[in-house]
């Protein structure tokens, strides 16, 4: 992506905006991204960033409860929001002759939310319901358990949705304090993509956001110490299926290793030609499904491997097969054909991330919010993928995928007998030299949670629903699906 088309607006109060003119259709997408996520929650505040995202639609001094949605609908547009560990984003899709309404709404609610106690209590129930919904989802439970194991000190340890105990305890005043501490122009930026005149847009942005008072800078967070040993856990899930999640800590989004890990994810598990799919699904027929994700965040994150097993298959055996393939990757590296295919796929995915104006706005926002170098990194994304060779891929695999690097959680049926894993990792080869120097950098998956659920009763076959659930995590990295589909289907 060329940065020539990105017009940057800088205001004295710290607010930034990135404007891109795209005029194929008379549409505009806006994304207001706050650098406020669950990482910014203090002790006893878990879930507050996400809960606040809900409350941003529940009334301000100018827009009564429900008015933001109603106004958006009347304008023939759509809006939504999501919160993850590192930030919260609010987006609108509107026709280009009325898109500035989004600016007015965002500027107003940055400082003027009301937090009516009755509305607060009602919305708390909605959030608790959302939490309960997640607890019924075996993939979600497995995901969160693994994440909590991999991060023991860093706030990535706690789920974005928060703990029920904290959510029940917080009151409207506590929410207001959190809002005032975190929501301000210097902790947010705006992306606008579509059929706009960037000069006119810049003027309007300055008018609306220029007088807003800044807030304190982000609190520093605890640094997660290097994990020196494998960590293991077991969760129980209703039903008869066994699943496994493995996660190792890696690097920050946008660091060079992040690009290499995208390649490695493609090679090891995230495609139908991947080694794990071939071995576990096609050859050994021990898993119905396997995937991998390179999950990147602001702070070092996680590389994931997830699998669902055929009935009667021993989970320890499957973990052993996964570890064999990881060892092979570390020892032998990647074949030329594998890297070539991965490169084609990555380039293609990158292309699809610009299919709609909202896709592009979210991509720019994601890079600006999370990547070292911000949105400017976009210019170097494809060249960096092109630079990475097989030697580097092998080195990166060795750096992160050592046998002791993994947090492993088995999800077993409630009535399944638990046999202790026979020190799976320790039986394998000794750590490679490169692996011992690993784990300096890290980053993680985005347990992203959104204000609205899918509206349509699920009509997809269960296989696809299960896969979708497992892939919830795959929020960054080249991907083909946008976060939202705002259209009403004719």
């Amino acid at each position, binding site marked *: 992506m060329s940065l020539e088309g990105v017009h940057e607006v800088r205001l004295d109060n710290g607010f930034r905006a990135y404007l891109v003119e795209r005029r194929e259709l008379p549409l505009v997408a806006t994304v207001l991204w706050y650098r406020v996520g669950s990482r910014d929650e203090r002790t006893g505040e878990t879930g507050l960033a996400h809960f606040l995202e809900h409350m941003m639609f529940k009334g301000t001094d100018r827009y009564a409860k429900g008015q933001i949605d109603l106004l958006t609908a009347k304008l023939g547009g759509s809006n939504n929001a999501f919160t993850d560990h590192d930030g919260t984003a609010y987006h609108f899709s509107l026709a280009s002759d009325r898109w500035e309404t989004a600016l007015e709404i965002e500027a107003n609610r940055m400082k003027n939310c009301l937090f009516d106690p009755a509305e607060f209590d009602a919305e708390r129930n*909605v959030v608790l319901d959302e939490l309960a919904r997640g607890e019924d989802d075996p993939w979600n439970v497995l995901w969160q358990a693994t994440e909590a194991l991999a991060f023991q000190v860093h706030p990535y340890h706690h789920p974005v949705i928060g703990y029920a105990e904290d959510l029940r305890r917080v009151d409207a005043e506590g929410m207001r304090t959190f809002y005032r501490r975190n929501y301000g122009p210097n902790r947010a930026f705006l992306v606008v993509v579509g059929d706009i005149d960037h000069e006119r847009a810049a003027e309007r942005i300055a008018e609306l956001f220029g007088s807003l008072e800044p807030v304190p800078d982000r609190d520093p967070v605890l640094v997660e110490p290097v994990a020196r040993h494998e960590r293991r856990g077991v969760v129980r899930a209703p039903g008869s299926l066994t699943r496994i999640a493995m996660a190792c800590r890696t690097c920050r989004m946008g660091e060079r290793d992040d690009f290499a890990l995208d390649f490695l994810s493609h090679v090891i598990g995230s495609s139908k030609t991947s080694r794990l799919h071939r071995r576990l699904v096609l050859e050994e027929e021990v898993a119905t499904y396997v995937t991998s994700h390179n999950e990147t965040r602001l702070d070092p994150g996680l590389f994931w491997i997830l699998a669902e097993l055929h009935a009667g298959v021993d989970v320890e055996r499957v973990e052993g097969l996964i570890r064999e393939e990881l060892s092979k990757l570390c020892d032998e590296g990647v074949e030329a054909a594998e890297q070539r295919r991965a490169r084609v796929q990555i380039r293609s995915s990158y292309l699809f991330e610009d299919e709609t104006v909202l896709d592009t706005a979210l991509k720019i926002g994601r890079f600006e919010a999370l990547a070292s170098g911000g949105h400017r990194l976009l210019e170097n994304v494809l060249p960096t993928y092109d630079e990475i060779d097989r030697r580097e891929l092998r080195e990166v695999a060795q750096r992160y995928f050592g046998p002791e690097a993994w947090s492993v959680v088995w999800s077993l049926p409630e009535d399944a007998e638990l046999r202790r894993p026979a020190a799976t990792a320790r039986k394998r080869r000794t750590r490679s030299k490169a692996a011992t120097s690993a784990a300096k950098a890290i980053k993680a998956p985005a347990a992203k949670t959104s204000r609205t659920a899918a509206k349509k009763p699920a009509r997809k076959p269960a*296989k696809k629903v299960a896969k979708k659930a497992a892939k919830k995590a795959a929020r960054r990295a080249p991907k083909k699906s946008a976060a939202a589909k705002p259209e009403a289907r004719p």
Partner: protein
Amino acid sequence: MSSRIQLRCAERELKNGLCCIALQSPESSTFAVSLSLAASQIEEGDDEHGLAYLTGSCLEEGTRRHSAVELAEAVENIGGSLSTAAGSVTIQCPADEAARAIRLVRTVGLEPAFDPRDVRRVQAEILSEIEADDADPRAVARRDFRRGVFGEHPLGRPSYGDAKTIAGFRAADLERFHRTWYAPRGAIVAASGPAPVEETLDVLAKAFRSFRGADSPRTAPLDPEMPHGRNESHVPMDREQVHVYLGHPGVRRSNPDFVPLLVMDHVLGTGPGFTSRVTRRLRDEMGLCYAVSASITQGAGLHPGAFTAYIGTSAANRQRSIDVFLEEIRRIRSEPPTPDELRDVQEYLTGSYVFGLERNSNLVGYAIRARRYGLGYDYIHRYPDEVRAVTREDVLRAAATHLDAERVVIASAGATV
């Protein structure tokens, strides 16, 4: 705004009866192509439950020219993604690989391998899906709901059949089903990308002109009947939430009341954000749930869909939620939407449909629906006027005609008081 939107679309019918459609989105750098055939669970015989689903799933497991891995490599080599289902094959890829994508769709759709080992493996995967669904209260409730609404109609059973039927199929069964129903007459292949439509049509025609297959007699199933009174069931499961489906048989896409019902849906249960009545009441005002919806037009196709209201909530709120659904159904059947409600929905629908034109995959889906439902490719241009023409009385009449609060199926599963 809609005056700026011009859809470039053309159709060509091949001698074999296949309908080729091309759309052009000149600025796009991506491409989508989809083959759509009437080969769903509607076509299954009495002893074939799940066969359409299994056949569709196995399409991506190899062709006469490719093993499963070779096929995946071929798709990945063009930067594509392949998805198959009962009667459909779709590839999305960069625009410069359009011709190869079209040829691949043809090969996948028309020359599947159905290797017995792959078929057995996919059968095992589907059995796992069934097991996962058995443990998922939402899936259990949905399954019971559809059985209650559609009865013996093929749409009343899960598309994947059941564990017994799935386990019994052999590769020869898939070959027979494919031979019978994957035929050109009545099938559609649609593609969308930056190339001029005539150019795309030429590539489609060349790829599919050798598509052969005889028409097979189709017997339309009898329409499902409205339930007699209230048909309520609940499956207790040890979970945090209870999932509730409520509704009855719905309408076809061809129903003349479709557009008034679309407006009604948005007033009642599918409006954006929290603007619809049931969402506003159950979530926004009462805080009973995270997910709630109600619609009769979603799922309306060649066969009748279902009016479906859904909520996931706590066990303590199950009955209140059902009561609110029924109150709102009665209300929308007995009083028209307010002028503001009607105007808001019309403005939303006429303003937002253009977002559906951004993705090539959406354009392909639109063209296939337009053709299959006889809407005409210019429907996108007529649609805003049709929506604007709907009156409050139209909505009231359509609701009174097609909704019923007294004859409903209510199926729930999950947490129990």
